[in-house]
């Protein structure tokens, strides 16, 4: 049976390149699942967990926004950033979440939009980190 060739790259690292059975990812319009022989498509990735299903096991990786392109059973994910659960420092992420939350609360209408945007990005990033980090033990048996 045809399989998907999944490639996850960030500007600083090639995170993963291997054949898998199914990919489920968080796009801006909702979750999108990709099975082999999917039509050619491109989508915008949101902040969220990307689920990789391969040989009966499932792994998750935190993706911090990006774009994905699917064609000819090749799924190439270009992410702004990505992290495996075991690389995430949960306590740091929790601290970051609390800090971002208090920053957002202290914002006034005069705060410039770039700062607001940056604070929200921090918050979303830390929330995804916390969510994905809980899958560390489940996923580790399939992750080398």
């Amino acid at each position, binding site marked *: 049976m045809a399989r998907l060739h999944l490639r996850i*790259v960030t*500007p*600083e690292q*090639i995170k993963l390149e291997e054949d898998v059975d199914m990919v489920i990812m968080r796009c*801006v*319009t909702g979750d999108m699942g990709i099975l082999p022989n999917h039509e050619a*498509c*491109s989508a915008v990735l949101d902040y969220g967990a990307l689920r990789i299903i391969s040989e009966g096991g499932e792994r998750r990786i935190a993706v911090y926004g990006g*774009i994905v*392109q699917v064609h000819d059973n090749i799924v190439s994910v270009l992410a702004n950033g990505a992290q495996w659960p075991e690389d995430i420092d949960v306590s740091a992420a929790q601290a970051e979440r609390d800090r971002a939350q208090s920053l957002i609360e202290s914002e006034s209408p005069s705060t410039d939009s770039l700062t607001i945007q940056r604070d929200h990005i921090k918050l979303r990033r830390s929330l995804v980190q916390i969510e994905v980090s809980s899958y560390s033990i489940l996923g580790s048996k399939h992750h080398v």
Partner: protein
Amino acid sequence: MPSMKAVKRRIVSVKSTQQIMKAMNLVAASKLQKTKGKLEIVRPMFSDIKNLMDGIRADSDGSDESVYAEKRDVKNIVCVVITSDRGLCGSYNINISKEALGFINKSDKQVKVVAIGTKGWEFFRRRGKDIPHRFSFGSETVPYEDAEDIGHLLTALYTSGQADEIYIAYTKFNTALSHKPSVVKLLPVGTEDGEEEGEAAASSLVHHGKLMSYDPDAGAFMSYAVPMYVNLFLYGSMIESAVCEHAARMTSMDAASRNAAEIIEDLTLAYNRKRQGMITQEITEIVGGANALQ
């Protein structure tokens, strides 16, 4: 003629300078290796996103309501110039600055400069250019966050209409000895100039062979993909420039330490000649004195 002591002192000072240059050479070599590793990752990723952009352009019929797709009268041009923060890297900075200056002078429009790296900022400030934004350039690490921050700014300049065209001047790395300063268009995405781009678009069409579907739609996809493309483009050219800087520093330090070795050789020769001259003179004096006694 300088005294023997003076020659000796010069030898010592040239030797210590040579030590420093040798050390800088080694440091540049290791930094070169590090940044080169990054380059190998970012190059394929960049060509991926470039193909994607070319694909969108080929697929979209121009009806998309994306700010990046609209055509504008070009009034304001922004040129991003990437140079190093520090000197001692041969002609690296002057080459790219001159290339950018040539581009700016050729244009009949008003060109603003965004300087990444202190050296370029100094160069254009001395020539009285308008530099609304200036960044320092940490060529040792080149974090992606830096490129993201500058990229956000550039995208904002473009979408707000403060810039109708954005160019980027950077040094392209071929081999350790061959670097090419070049000015390329960043925004709007891939219109006219450059035969390379045309080729890429054609190859991407052949590559996919069928129409892509876009989620949510081509216009929305583009308004997300373009900023990312800008960030990546910027990051890629920063990495290329950093690699070139280290390579340039390495070769110029290597040449400098070889020059130092030559100077040391000459000075040592002069020193020995002097020493021998003194010994000869002393012997002559002794012999002369002994002869006078007989």
